[in-house]
């Protein structure tokens, strides 16, 4: 099955991006296809290459980047939400791309299911 994912909250601050990540991993393990993970609202902060969590904590941004690389997942950050929050190409972590909100609608159209993680 083709799944689309929307993440509305930033890393560490809310559990939403943790849950989204663990859900996506489980879906891949079960053989589902992830059409796209779209990051909106504070969710765009998941793509900041500048975050430095304590060494004994998970690295949420790096975890997404690794997932994107290993499974060719399309990680899309909303451009308008990103500008408002100071995310740009030069502080965008590997595996993410910045694009418009249309990509969220397209995710809804193309995916068999759209699952939202937020606050």
């Amino acid at each position: 099955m083709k799944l689309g994912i929307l993440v509305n909250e930033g890393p560490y601050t809310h559990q939403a991006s943790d849950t989204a990540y663990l859900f996506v991993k489980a879906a891949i393990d079960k053989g589902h296809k992830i059409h796209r993970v779209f990051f909106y609202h504070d969710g765009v902060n998941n793509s900041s290459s500048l975050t430095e969590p304590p060494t004994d904590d998970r690295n949420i941004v790096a975890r997404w980047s690794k997932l994107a690389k290993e499974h060719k997942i399309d990680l899309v950050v909303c451009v308008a939400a990103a500008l408002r929050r100071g995310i740009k190409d030069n502080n965008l972590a590997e595996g993410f791309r910045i694009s418009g909100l249309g990509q969220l609608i397209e995710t809804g159209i193309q995916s068999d299911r759209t699952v939202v993680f937020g606050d």
Partner: protein
Amino acid sequence: MTESTGGIDMDEGTSGVVKKFLYVNRKAPYGTIYALESLEVVLIAAAFDQDVSLAFLDDGVYQIAKGQHTKGIDVKNFSPTFRALEGYDIEKLYVSKDAMETRGLTEKDLLVPVTVLGAEEIADLMEQQDVVLSF
């Protein structure tokens, strides 16, 4: 158009598919940005020729309250945009009867014409959707 829709050629990949999208609004305006950024999604959605509905439940009904004047908090008043939705062919606006009653609001307190639904009818509306987006 290409820019606002994220560089998607809408005739490719999505052509012919018309899904029922429901946008669920449960949050008050201004205290948080969810209401504003949700509305930005709805405006983009209008370009995709999908079957769009908006539901205002719980504190979401406050988003479409008349008489919003935001100068005093120095935040942009985005409520007039709801009036513009009709021009984008987004005309299916549903409001929870319970939410209105809990807040002492009536239809004449609202900025735009809406369809008021009871809880069961809202439940039916939700069941009919292909995609439900909440923010």
